[in-house]
């Protein structure tokens, strides 16, 4: 029974059944499964599969976002239980993220925030049009390992540099890795402004965040490789 329910949770995450995921998570607690087991053997395998399917071109952004929010809602149920057992799930890292001052674009930033959160990061999403000093203050307050800066406009991407300079001025730059993203942002831009990481999409951002914090060194992820040959796609369409 208990194994079965964990498999069902995984399947529900993969299928984007948000309400059922939450219901099954509740049931799993009722039958006495440990919250940590539900996370590690039910929810996380689902998120991993969804990420793989997206990378393979089989899944699309709505699949990614629905799975991510299902994970977040299930975690909201599990976190009080973890606390009650005085257990803490070691976060993959603490992330502060937002769209820079003067820019109100939200989609890409929220997607990255959702996927980071679904992959076990503690995410503080500051929203859009975030003043530079708010980023700095939040990094200080949370002791964040990682700062994600989004900019969708060529006119606002320069603000990413300003935030990095503000971190340096505050003596915080060595404590926190900085990732940049957004439509006009490129690897060479990231290098030029002294950011630690850059990715083309949300799955790439998760990968790079994990690598940055694990190894503490600079890595670059370019556009995900097209792992699905065209022929496969045609076959599925037929």
């Amino acid at each position, binding site marked *: 029974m208990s194994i079965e329910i964990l498999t069902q949770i995984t399947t529900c995450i993969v299928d984007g059944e948000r309400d059922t995921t939450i219901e099954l998570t509740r049931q799993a607690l009722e039958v006495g499964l440990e919250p940590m087991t539900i996370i590690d053997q039910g929810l996380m395998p689902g998120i991993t599969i969804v990420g793989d399917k997206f990378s393979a071109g089989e899944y699309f*952004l*709505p699949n990614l976002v629905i799975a991510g929010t299902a994970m977040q809602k299930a975690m909201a149920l599990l976190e009080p239980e973890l606390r009650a057992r005085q257990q803490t799930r070691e976060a993959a890292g603490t992330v502060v993220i937002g769209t820079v001052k003067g820019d*109100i674009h939200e*989609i*890409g930033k929220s997607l990255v925030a959702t996927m980071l959160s679904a992959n076990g990061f503690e995410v503080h999403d500051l929203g859009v049009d975030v003043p530079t000093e708010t980023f700095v203050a939040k990094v200080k307050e949370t002791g964040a390992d990682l700062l994600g800066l989004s900019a969708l406009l*060529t006119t606002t991407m*320069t603000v990413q540099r300003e935030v990095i300079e503000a971190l340096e001025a505050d003596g915080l730059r060595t404590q926190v890795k900085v990732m940049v993203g957004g*439509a*006009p942002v490129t690897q060479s831009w990231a290098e030029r402004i002294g950011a630690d990481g850059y990715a083309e*999409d949300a799955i790439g951002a998760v990968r790079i965040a994990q690598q940055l914090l694990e190894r503490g060194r600079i890595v670059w992820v370019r556009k995900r490789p097209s792992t699905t040959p065209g022929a496969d796609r045609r076959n599925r369409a037929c």
Partner: protein
Amino acid sequence: MRPKLKLLSDEMVNQIINEAFAALIDPGVRVLNEEALNLLAEAGAKVNMETQVALIPESIVRHALEISPSEFYLYTLDGEPVVHYGGDSVQFDPCSTAVTILDSETLEHRAPLTDDLVKFVKLVETIPQLDAQSTALICFDVVEEIADLYRLYIALNFMRKPIVTGAFRKDTLWTMKEMLVATVGGEAELVAKPVAVFDVCPSPPLMWSDLTCQNLIDCARSGIPSQLVSMPLAGATAPVTLAGAVVQHTAECMSGVTICQLAKEGAPVVWGGSPAAFDMREGTTPMGDIGTWMIDCAYIQVGKALNMPTNTYLGLSDSKVVDAQCGLESAGGTILAALVGANMVSAAGMLDFESCQSYEKLVIDAEIIGMAKRLIAGIEARDDPIAMTLMRKLGHKGAYLAEPHTLKWFKKELYIPSEVIDRSSLDGWKQKGSKTAFERAADRVNQLLATYRQPAMSEELRAELRRIASSASQKFGMDELPPLPQD
């Protein structure tokens, strides 16, 4: 008969309009501009100054739509009315505000400089298929605070055609107006014969930023036509259904028309947009997507049902180079724009969504535009009977080339492209150097530029424009503007 395309039934147009009216009441429009909120409140909208949300009753919107002009003209700098916003007139300008230019040699997308924009403006002047200029490139050799007005400054020095432009700041709109007034010789002249239309963009879903809303108000009060560029992103910042995206577009445009008319009754404003069907794999905004085109065609139809002049961004390509994808996307969108009767189609030259301008694409697009204009000119009888008399006369002899009837009609009946389009024999093509469309386009660019003659402009006006642009740049720490070719 003029061929016309409609994607929506009359019933669905009505439903879309009614749902848009309803959306303006609930959830309403978020307007981050105090002046606009005050105007809306005074008119009877329920305004929450804290959340900056205005709930606008249908009666206010209907009144605004009624008093909004159904047509107006843009004039050349010589005072000729050449662009008719209204009815089913269809006109074309280059897509504006590219942040890169496709380098003809390296094929890199590089930062445009003053010389690039000068060349671009000259090229547009020489392309007969283009009815208007646009401030097409952002020049990276000036401070970014004057990026908007600097484009207009360059264009005014080299153009006669009217121009589609826009401001990136509140204060720079006034500088741009000052340049236009200087050019046409007075404020009253600018109002009587507008030479420019300003793009103003609501932010999806159902929001107006402080800046763009102020631009809309200031344009209205200055008698400068504005063009609403509503851009629902279906599936991301708008409903994923095409009809749902059109409902949101309709509501956003209605709110724009309302704010405009409250600022100044009877101010000219265009029902326009640049929506896209969100790409669910890449998270991008494809302009060459069939769903994007369908949303465009549908919102044009809604705008026409409301008796508004219209604008659209059909005919752009998401490709990064001038290739087969570029050709098919540009042709598809342009043909549809013509068939649906969009008054101003702002697309020519643009690659990489709305980011990269290309001289070569511009001249290829000119051929597509030529074909599209021919298409909507339709098939006419020309003679009565249409052909019977002629066919009896010539019988079974294929001697039509020698007929006066052929000489009389062929230029009206056939669209004759430039050599950008290859129709030579295989041997003929080889003899001309076996050139690709891109190479032929590059040749065409050079040929056209060689025909450009700078229009006469008094030294006083030239100096005055430079003074206005320079005093703006000095405010932002740039003492000297880059030299123009005639400097």
